């Protein structure tokens, strides 16, 4: 039962590197196929890049944890993840609000134009 003591840390490092690269490639592929607009890809690509860098240079996470005063480096990883996701979600909320406003203007304009045609 002492498997946990023999954890091969390099495995998760390789998994993390592969995962980050897959995320970046996936996002780029979505842009290429025009399924994703560049505007919405930037934050995702940024997140992917940050995770790639963190998984390539393991010391970086420890250094960051000490810098901001986190005693347990994996917690710093979650912090970065959550902050990144928050940014993306707020970006979504703003985009949805803009869409809603545009949608309202379009519906109003369409209604007024139809009315104008009926009056002629």
């Amino acid at each position: 039962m002492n498997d946990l003591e023999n954890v091969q840390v390099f495995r998760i490092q390789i998994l993390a590197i592969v995962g980050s690269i897959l995320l970046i490639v996936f996002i780029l592929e979505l842009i290429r196929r025009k399924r994703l607009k560049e505007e919405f890809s930037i934050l995702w690509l940024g997140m992917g890049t940050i995770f790639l860098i963190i998984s390539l240079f393991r010391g970086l996470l420890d250094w960051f944890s000490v810098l901001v005063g986190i005693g347990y480096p994996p917690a710093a990883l979650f912090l970065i993840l959550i902050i990144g996701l928050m940014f993306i979600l707020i970006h979504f909320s703003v985009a949805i609000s803009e869409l809603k406003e545009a949608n309202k203007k379009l519906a109003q304009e369409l209604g007024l134009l139809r009315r104008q045609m009926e009056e002629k």
Partner: protein
Amino acid sequence: MKKLIIIPAFNEEKTIAGVLEEVQAHCPDFDILVVNDGSTDKTSDIARRFSGVRVIDLAVNLGIGGAVQTGFLYARGKAYEAAVQVDADGQHKPAEVAKLLRPIDRGEADVVIGSRFLEKGRYKARLGRKLGIWLLSLTNRLLLGQKITDSTSGFRAYNKRAIELLSRDYPDDYPEPEAIFLLRRNALTVREVPTEMAGRKGGKSSISLPESVYYMVKVFLAIFVLMLRKNNRGLP
């Protein structure tokens, strides 16, 4: 004076005909516009049967704010000098439209609100609603220095300046209390006149308890944000 009655309607097939008949009987000098807010019932068909009633069909449901604003946009485009908003559910009495318009005619106010509470009437509200209305009224008095007794009333008359402002900028949902702040922030004058309102002829109140909590939070947030903004954002 070119005058328009704006009737926002969302699925009001049971009441719209009665409202239109009354409006035509009591307000012969008005043009009548029904803004059908993406109804899924026969609201639009019924309204179109009335000759002289103009109907704008919105392709999607925008909510009361977007629908009323469409009316303002129409009024602005056609250079109406006054507009009166009347609900399609039969709550507002077309017989009182003239009373609402009087201060506008005399140039005494930019917007006139028909209030249920100015005179002690028979209107009975539930406790929660009473509390909400009291809170809004207190906020009005504190922030605007003016007592508005019925912030949520949608029975309103507007002059040209108000139409101009609100056609550019009108809140989306639960717009009534917020609009008062918007108007006052842009130095327009608001006045109340006592009106009687009928009980609903059909349908139920559109607001349930969780919704009324959302209502209050949304309205106070909007008012707070409005206070943070600079003045006169709506007028050019």
